[in-house]
């Protein structure tokens, strides 16, 4: 029974994870993530970690995912900028190669773990008490650092999201978007995809400017 459950949950987790990265619609992606997280919760249950499983469902699949859904709904999907054709072919190839390697690694040694019973079950394992006790004894330091990490994340969010004084609408000028002419291959996203965006914005602003020199035209490169 538990073996069947394991394969079901594991399969669901993998399918969910694949769904997150392959689905084009952000909302579907989020839902796939929910599926993945719930499957993980099931795996936790199989390990008799009921509390962790519950927390997984309540916190991640519940609260965090709701937040995600809200954000996606609020911001909207946005236009996807397609990758170059080479990468579209090579990307999956690389991923496949890596996946094969990881499978070799896992199958090469750890399969012995599957047809063996794992660590023995101890009374009270997976209970809130046990977890709380570990947090206050063996993992006291990581626990405290993790709490600081959350604080840092909160500060970071505030720094990035808060409204800045003097940043009124329209303060962003087109020349800011164009920035300075840069040599080729100096690596900004703007150079890769932003030129097109800037051109569109310029066209909207000036009613159809036809010629924009790309920011990093070859030849402006520094002598080497």
């Amino acid at each position, binding site marked *: 029974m538990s073996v069947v459950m394991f394969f079901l949950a594991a399969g669901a987790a993998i399918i969910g994870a694949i769904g997150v990265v392959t689905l084009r619609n952000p909302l579907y992606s989020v839902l796939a993530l929910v599926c993945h997280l719930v499957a993980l919760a099931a795996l936790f249950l199989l390990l008799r970690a009921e509390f962790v499983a519950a927390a997984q469902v309540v916190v991640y699949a519940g609260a965090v995912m709701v937040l995600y859904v809200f954000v996606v709904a609020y911001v909207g999907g946005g236009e996807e900028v397609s990758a170059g054709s080479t990468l579209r072919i090579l990307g999956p190839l690389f991923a496949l190669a890596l996946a094969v390697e990881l499978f070799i690694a896992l199958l090469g040694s750890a399969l012995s773990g599957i047809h063996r019973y794992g660590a023995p079950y101890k009374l*009270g394992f997976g209970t809130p008490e046990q977890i709380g006790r570990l947090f206050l004894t063996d993992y006291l330091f*990581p626990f405290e650092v993790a709490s600081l*990490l959350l604080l840092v994340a909160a500060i970071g969010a505030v720094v990035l999201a808060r409204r800045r004084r003097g940043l009124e609408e329209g303060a962003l000028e087109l020349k800011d978007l164009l920035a300075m002419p840069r040599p080729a291959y100096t690596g900004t996203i703007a150079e890769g995809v932003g030129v097109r965006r800037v051109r569109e914005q310029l066209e909207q602003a000036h009613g159809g400017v036809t010629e924009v020199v790309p920011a990093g035209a070859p030849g402006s490169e520094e002598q080497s």
Partner: protein
Amino acid sequence: MNAHPYAMSFLLATAHIHGPHISWAELSPIAVLGVGALVVLLVGLASSQMVRARLVPTLTLVAIAGAIGTEIWRFSHAPQTIVAGALRIDDLALIADLVCAVAAVAAVLLAWRARAPREAGQGEFHSLMLFSLMGMAVLVSAQDLITLFLGLELLSIPLYVLCAAEYRREGSLEAGLKYLIIGSVGSATLVYGLALIYGATGQTGFGAVAHVLASQSGGGLLGDPLLLTGIALVIVGFAFKASVAPFHQWTPDVYEGAPTAITAFMATATKAAAIAVFLRFFDFTLTAEHVNWAPALAALASVTIIVGNVGALGQSSLKRLLGYSGVAQAGYMLTGLVVGTRLGVSATMFYVVAYLLMNLGAFAVIVHQERVSGSDRMAALSGLGRRSPLLAWSLTIAMLALAGIPGTIGFIGKVQLIHSLVNGGYGWLAIVLVVGAMISLGYYLRVVAAIWMTPADARGVAVAGAGPLAGAPVAAFPPIAGGSPEADLQASAGGGALGVERLTGDPELLLVAGVFGALCIVFGVIPGPVFEFVAHAGAALVGLR
């Protein structure tokens, strides 16, 4: 069943919980930073502009100074594993802590008048910096896989935000975003690797892992694909933070886009922490696997040296150039790790210290340059030698030191690395290092040339006046024969080519540039103290030859 098991365990728990012993003395370097970060964050909420702009950075400096003080206090005490095996405060950790703290002091000074802290909020900016510093301290003293990962995250997450601190500048935002995404890939790789190592050994403590690998029963584990894959993933995860090629590509972009003070901090402190944890993890925890990981790291190091140096050629932005140079220097530092000897550890830490001194001076000059001319283009440096000799000398010394010219600390550092490589049987890697250093002259010297070159317009005046025109008024023409730079300076200043710009620079920049420039030379001629200092690091990793 007379009692519900849950209630039972609850009773047991309340009865027997004893928190681990916390040695506050050992923990103090980390604790001081954490408390400092919280205090700074709170003070940053003050309504007075004066308090925010002056008190907050000052408090930050005080907190870092406190950390430095406790680090010096704990230095060369017997190493101890504290807080239930989470941390080990030894000399390797303390040296790395000190390097990071010095970098943070310099970064705070460089940010003193900068735009980034004003935009991000003084309290937030500085407390993030302190948190990041604390993350480095946790990372380098981590003695457990979990602490290691948390330290890395505590180091990285504040930096993601700090990179984007100049929110209204597109480059800064882009740098933050890039760093976040690529950094997350790195973190994910690392945590996967850590999980595999845990899976293979069943342990999370470094000491326990090392013990399992070294023990008779664990001997069969050495060729275990699971373990080796874990090691591979960990290498890649660390390589991200240390910007080792081919995982370096974020480096130039992020260095260029981030506020320069943050770039200086990242370039020096993050690298020091990453190299230190590299050392601890590979030369202590996985030292039994040396035969397997050493060739891989050697290959990565040589790729890094070549890619970094070759990429830096032809860069026109100084920050970008230093980004590539940082990649190459990371390659140099890795070489000392590869040999897996005490000598190698000492040489690597020596180079970490040298790298700190060499880069901070250079970044101070870049901050000055950005304030004066609005860009970090190399071409804008021309005439710096006349405008501000102190800064010009600092940058010159920094460049020569990075290139490894004798008489500077960079030379001694490279010689130490080569020494350890030759001793450790990696002579070919030493050759790669030297070839890399040779290529690097191609760009470091261009910077030096740019500093001391006369600006084009002033040169025009000098050439025009070079004819044999006796009796011409001196104000209009430079003297005809004989003279001195001083006279040339007056002549060109009279021509209006110079003199409009600030002649010197902000005092804190001059301080940073001057101090670190001078130290590059002082320790280049008298490296003894630094050498003795870093020798402690080699001794801290037990079990090394």
